[in-house]
């Protein structure tokens, strides 16, 4: 503990409380209240209802929620697999190759997601890679956006990993595949889980690229929220956002529990 006096600790907690309250808790509270608001003309809603939440888990809104969950799971799984693969491959490559891979895989972070969407539209609107108008282009966009985080987290974990473990495993007669499956990947589980959490959260909230690319049968929940807000259905949009938050939270808690179990060993 760097702060020793009670007064200083209280001041710090207060500063943290204000910051947390303004930046995170207040917007979330507003979304929560709006999701159950019947009418809202004053500081707080005048009436409360569960009707918006019921609408948010039925019909088109429910379909969008399911699309978001599927997109998030597929994109995060693909990001973890591709990111781990790239990180492991880069580790055994010569230093210049590794630097190039590092740079290329981190580039999408610096590009606005709208630009990612536009680039994919240009790239995949003509044969032989005609993905425009299909759900695949949305999945590819999400993968491009979350892959750098999957790669970065696994790469950082590999930097801390002891390379001697793999050497010793090989000396005991384990083939490279066995070393990967029995030694390297199990040791990377906490990092893989963290990468999946980050990728899932990012994918669930992605709207910039998706709104440029989504086909009618693959509309994600953030796109629906955007459309609802655009139509002035603010309470329904809030209820849909609450559903989105709930689904993301369940996913993150599940991955967090897996990470906890892996880290305990």
């Amino acid at each position, binding site marked *: 503990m760097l702060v020793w006096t009670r007064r200083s600790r209280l001041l710090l907690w207060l500063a943290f409380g204000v910051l947390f309250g303004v930046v995170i808790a207040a917007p979330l509270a507003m979304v929560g209240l709006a999701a159950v608001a019947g009418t809202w003309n004053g500081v707080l809603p005048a009436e409360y209802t569960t009707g918006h939440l019921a609408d948010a888990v039925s019909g088109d809104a429910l379909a969008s929620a399911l699309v978001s969950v599927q997109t998030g799971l597929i994109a995060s799984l693909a990001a973890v697999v591709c990111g781990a693969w790239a990180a492991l491959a880069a580790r055994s490559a010569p230093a210049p190759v590794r630097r190039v891979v590092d740079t290329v895989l981190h580039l999408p972070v610096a590009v606005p997601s709208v630009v990612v969407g536009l680039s994919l539209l240009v790239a995949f609107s003509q044969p032989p890679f005609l993905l425009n108008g299909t759900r695949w282009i949305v999945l590819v966009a999400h993968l491009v956006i979350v892959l750098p985080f999957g790669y970065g987290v696994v790469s950082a974990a590999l930097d801390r990993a002891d390379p001697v473990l793999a050497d010793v495993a090989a*000396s*005991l007669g384990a083939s490279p595949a066995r070393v990967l499956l029995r030694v390297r990947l199990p040791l990377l589980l906490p990092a893989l889980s963290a990468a999946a959490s980050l990728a899932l959260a990012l994918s669930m909230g992605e709207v910039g690229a998706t709104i440029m690319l989504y086909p009618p049968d693959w509309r994600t929940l953030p796109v629906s929220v955007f459309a609802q807000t655009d139509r002035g259905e603010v309470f329904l949009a809030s209820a849909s956002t609450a559903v989105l938050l709930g689904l993301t939270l369940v996913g993150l808690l599940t991955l967090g529990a897996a990470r906890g179990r892996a880290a305990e060993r």
Partner: protein
Amino acid sequence: MTAPAVELRGVSVHFGRTVALRELDLVVGRGEALALLGPSGSGKSTALKAVAGFVRPHSGRVLLSGVDVTDAPPHRRGLGVVVQNYALFPHMRVADNVAFGLRARRMPRREVEQRVTEVLAMVGMADYRRRYPRELSGGQQQRVAIARALAIRPPVLLLDEPLSALDAALREEMLAELLRLRRELPDTAMVYVTHDQGEALALADRVAVMRDARLVEVGPTAQLYHRPRAEFTASFLGAANLLPVELVAAAPEGSDGSDGTVRADGLATVRLAGAELRAEPTGPLPAGTPVALGVRPHRVEVRADAGLPARLLGVQWRGTGFRLELELDDGSRLRADVSTVDGLPAVGERVGVSIPDGCPLVPAGAGA
């Protein structure tokens, strides 16, 4: 004739522009224990890694039991490896760690169980098979690492500074344990990398002294200790004082060295700080070669009033005795280990130093 367990033929290892090992030739016989001894950066661990297949030689060949394995990956070499930080798999229990190599060989489950029980009993860890590595002490982890390496019954066991992460008491205990294992496994060759001469002397049949990526000298342990041929060996293995001396006469006494060389067939006469001493050349010493006398600190006698005149520069108490820092009248400095300082004058005063006959005489700068 049986092929040696390990043979290195002109093995060089480069890391980028750095030469980590330079043209190493080395042979380890079946059942033999060879210590690779040297300071940090001497190339001893790199040599071991070249044998294990962890690094690829830039040039030269590595042979195991006469078979060229230079291009073979580690998992096709069948060696047991124990490293300094134990390298136990943290996500596996002790029994699974030990069984890892056996399962990789697809050994039947019952035999795996039997072998794991056997080797864990051998290293005294039978009661810890359900524990995770993090639940073990350093010494226990090292025992498990040794058990894991021995479980596959390798013809060669490679040990890379296996005791250096342990505290002094545990190190002693594990050294005794390794000696016991040596007796129990007479057919297993052992390559033991260490910077600790005590471990090398205790465990090895032969010692290879390394420095700056090169092999300085290799030979039977006692020979290297008592009759080092290189100045570096004398100083590193036994911490000898290296005193520059003048070669007066060849051996045996009476020969005048008129053929221009000094024969290594007996004791030679050398002059140190004006006094003549008898020393044992450990190899041919061509006339005119600068030579150094290797005198181990415990062989130096220090008295108040007799011997080579010297000045006492300092005294360190080391529990079991004292280490004295001395300076002879010709400016040479030396260390002496004595059991008592009773009767000796104070620091800064004059004392007498006696050096016994028969100390090794080596070419100055050899192996440097």
